[in-house]
Every structure is written in structure tokens, then in C-alpha cells.
């Protein structure tokens, strides 16, 4: 790959992250220091790597589904005369007013506790940036290029596949990047609904008044999100 030298700091950070995860159970003194009243400062209810794995599966899985839906929806919305466009605008406006926790909470009675309601909410939320990016990217293709493409006798499907999508790719990918970061952040909230992830220690800690748990969970969740953002920014270039 072309980017080894730029990727080195990122890889170093990722390594540090994993190292910290591995070392966390041994750092009781560190976690307990701000919270002298807490008797069991070290999180040991579930392995950190298991939590990390579950978190990533949830986020990445949701993004894959959302990417397919968002890409498909964006393509559909730009075909024809844009009759579906107002629907997309209406959806975006509504989605802004529904916080992720509300979406997860609403899905709970339907899907029960666990990963399912979180997954549903994640897919719905991650769809939106991908939709936005796809529509913006496809809109940005110069009309002259499309006219010339049709004029050479390319069929509609070929124009989409060989001309429109490659030219829209940078904007679509930036939408995908937003979707991934959003997904990782929102998955943490899913711990409230029983999803297993890096947010679980936060929720357990809050329920049991264990500030040390909250600190550990918060630290690693934030760190993962920042790492993911950095990684995707690098990939974008």
C-alpha cells in the first residue's frame, strides 16, 4: 500500500490502545485513585477484548447494512426526476429530532433487550450520512459528462457504474466515514439496552455508583472512537 509512512503513528496509537486494554485489569490503583470510596475499582465482569470485539461487530455490521441501504437509496433518489428527494429531506429533518437513545428505547419493546434494538437504531442512523453523501456525490457529477456519456451510446446502468459512481466516490466515502464514527459512538449507548460493548462498564458503573467502572468504560470508548476517526481520515486521502 502507498501509505506506510503516514500510517505509522496511527498503528502506534492502535497498538497503545490494545496494550492499554490488555493492561487495564492490572491498573487497579490508577482507576481507584479518583474514587477512594469504591471497593472494586477494576472492571472484571467481562474481558475487555470481548467487549471490544462485540462493539466492533455491532458497529461494523450496522455500517455494512447501512451502506447498502444508503447507497441504494441514494441512487434511487437521483434517478428519474428526483421524486423521492423530498422524502429524503423530510427523513433527515425528522431524524435530527430523534436522539439515538430514543430510537434504541423505542425499538426495545419490539425487539427485547440485547443487541437487536441497538442494531436497528444503528442501521437507521448510519444510513443517513451515507444517503446524504451518495446524493451529494451523484449530484456533483458534471451534467456535460453525463450528456457526453449518453451521447456515446452508454446505457443507463453503464453510465451509473462506469461514470457516475466513480466520480461520486470521494463524497460517498466521506459520508461512509461519518457513518462509521457515528456508529461506533452510538453503539456505546446501546449498552443501556443490554447490548454488550465498551459502553457496558459505563452503564454498570452508573447503576452501581462505581465511578471507576465509568472511568474505564468512558476512556476506552472515547479512545476507540478517536482511533476510528483518525484511521478513516487517513484512508480518505
Amino acid at each position, binding site marked *: 500500500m502507498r501509505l506506510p509512512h503516514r500510517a505509522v503513528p496511527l498503528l502506534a496509537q492502535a497498538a497503545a490502545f490494545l496494550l492499554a486494554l490488555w493492561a487495564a485489569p492490572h491498573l487497579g490503583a490508577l482507576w481507584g485513585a479518583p474514587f477512594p470510596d469504591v471497593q472494586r475499582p477494576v472492571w472484571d465482569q467481562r474481558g475487555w477484548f470481548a467487549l471490544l470485539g462485540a462493539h466492533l461487530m455491532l458497529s461494523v455490521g450496522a455500517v455494512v447494512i447501512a451502506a447498502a441501504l444508503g447507497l441504494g437509496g441514494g441512487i434511487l433518489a437521483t434517478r428519474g426526476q428526483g421524486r423521492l428527494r423530498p422524502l429524503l429531506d423530510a427523513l433527515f429533518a425528522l431524524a435530527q429530532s430523534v436522539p439515538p437513545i430514543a430510537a434504541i428505547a423505542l425499538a426495545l419493546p419490539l425487539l427485547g433487550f440485547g443487541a437487536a434494538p441497538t442494531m436497528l437504531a444503528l442501521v437507521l442512523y448510519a444510513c443517513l450520512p451515507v444517503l446524504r453523501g451518495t446524493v451529494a456525490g451523484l449530484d456533483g457529477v458534471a451534467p*456535460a*459528462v*453525463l450528456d*457526453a456519456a449518453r*451521447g*456515446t*451510446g452508454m446505457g443507463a446502468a453503464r453510465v451509473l457504474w462506469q461514470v457516475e459512481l466513480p466520480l461520486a466516490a470521494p463524497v460517498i466515502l466521506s459520508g461512509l466515514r461519518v457513518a462509521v464514527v457515528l456508529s461506533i459512538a452510538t453503539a456505546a449507548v446501546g449498552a443501556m439496552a443490554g447490548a454488550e460493548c465498551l459502553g457496558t462498564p459505563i452503564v454498570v458503573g452508573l447503576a452501581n455508583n462505581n465511578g471507576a467502572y465509568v472511568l474505564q468504560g468512558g476512556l476506552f470508548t472515547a479512545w476507540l472512537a478517536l482511533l476510528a476517526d483518525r484511521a478513516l481520515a487517513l484512508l480518505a486521502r
Partner: protein
Amino acid sequence: MIRFDRVTKRYGHRAVVDSVSLEVRKGGLCVLLGESGSGKSTLMRMVNRMVEPDAGRVMLDGTDIANVPPESLRHGIGYVIQSVGLFPHWRVADNIATVPRLLGWDAARVASRVDALLQLVGLPPEDFRARYPHELSGGQAQRIGLARALAADPPVLLMDEPFSALDPGIRRGLQVALRRIHAETAKTILFVTHDVEEALLLADELAVMQDGRLLAHGRPAEVLRRDADPVVKRLFGEATLAFHRLGTLRAANAARPASATQPAEAQLPILPPDSNLKQALMLMLESGTDQVALPGGATLHLSDILAAA
């Protein structure tokens, strides 16, 4: 080769093309001349079915194109537009190779065709085949656009104001190049423009349009003659019409033969061969004389120009 049979196109209640009948003969370069909104581009785009007529038929080499699937129709028609529309993410060679690849040509044949076309449009292949469109100047890009249109050797070429966005010097070079290519390849070309000079330079046949209607059609000299349709006169303006008419008349036809009684001819400015009366007039203005000489000894007076106009 191309025949429009009472074609009409309406947008809303407005007839953008109003019952136009026109025939373009095979191998000719027919220029559609008119102002913006005259319907000339719309008419041209009916030939490759980018626009479908609401009434009338378009016949291509005897076949009604409504019966031909649009994609295969367009494979056989070259299409050049003002903003060129090269695919920014493909190299020049790939852009030119668009239609040949669609037709399934093998790689070797495509590559040699690309190089041949680059040479035809006057760009060295080694230098240009690997470039990207953003590395091209306006004139170079439009030459590539022309090469792309010619790639699969279509018998018909549609050109929609292809040089209008270019600087005058570049435009001139491309017009000359087009004349040369037309002479070499004998394709049927339908060329749309609003520039009268360009039309007169390129046209074998001139078709003047206004408000969706065909006002006049024929050789440039016929369309611009003194007793032309009053609507045509009003469109160009009488004075401009006369001036452009000069461009259709050969200087040699109006000149006086060489005579022994003009010893001063050695000092007269000399017209290039095959000049027209417009060029003669401009030479007179430039030199400040009322006489010019032609190669071969004939002379031309200002009064001769006035008589011929």
C-alpha cells in the same frame, strides 16, 4: 443522409422546433445557424435521439431512427458538445476508446486507433494518450472530444457549438482542423453555431433557424444573396448581411484582368490566392488603398467590390 420530415418539439405550449423539414446530403457539412433559443441544438439532438420529436420523423440513411434502439444508434453517430464532457477519471486514451470498447474491439485495434486519431486531430500520441482531462487546455480537450467522436469511424458527426467556449485564436485553429478532417474523411457533419463567421468558414450548406422555424437553407451564397428572405435580412441586419455576403464571393470573379496600362501595380498589396471579397476589402482598409492585386496580375478596385455585393 439525414432527413428531417416536419419535426416538431414542444416544451409546455411553446414549440421549440416547429415543423422543420431539412435534408442534409451525404458527405456534406451542414451548419445550423441561429441565435440562442432558435431550436438548432434541439433539432440536432433529435438525430441521435437525445431528444425525441413530438411530431414528424427523422430519417438516417433512409431508416426512421425511431425504429432503432437509441444506444446502438449512438454508437454509429459521433457527438461533440460545447463543454466537451470528457470523463475526468479516465485518461485521454480511455476517453477516446469509449465507443470502440462498447463495440467490443480488441485492445490492439483500440490502441492503434487511438494513436491514429490523436495524430488526426493534431496532438502527438506519445505525449497525450496518458494524460488526464484536467491536464489539457480548452483547445486540446475539444480536439480529444472530436477524436472520441470519430473513434468508431461513424458516418455522421453531430457538433453542438463545439468551439464557442474557446478563445478566438484557438477556435480558428480548430475550425481549420475540422475543415481538413472533413475533407479527409468525407463524413456527414451537422454543425450548430450562433457565430456567422464560423458558419461561413465551415459550411457547405447553411440552414438558418429562428424561433424553431427553418428560415432559409442552401449554399451560403444563396442564403445571403441580396434578394434573400426578408426575415433572414432582418435576422442578420441588412448591412451585416451584405458584409457577410462578400465572404461568399470569390475575388477572382470580380477582378479586372491584367492590363498593360497599370504600371503601378507592382506597389499594390497582393491578395492571397482563393481569397474572397471580404478579405479583399479588409486588405484595402489595412493598406489604405482602393486597389489590390491578385496573384497572376489581375487587379481589384473598391468599385468592383461594390458592384459585386
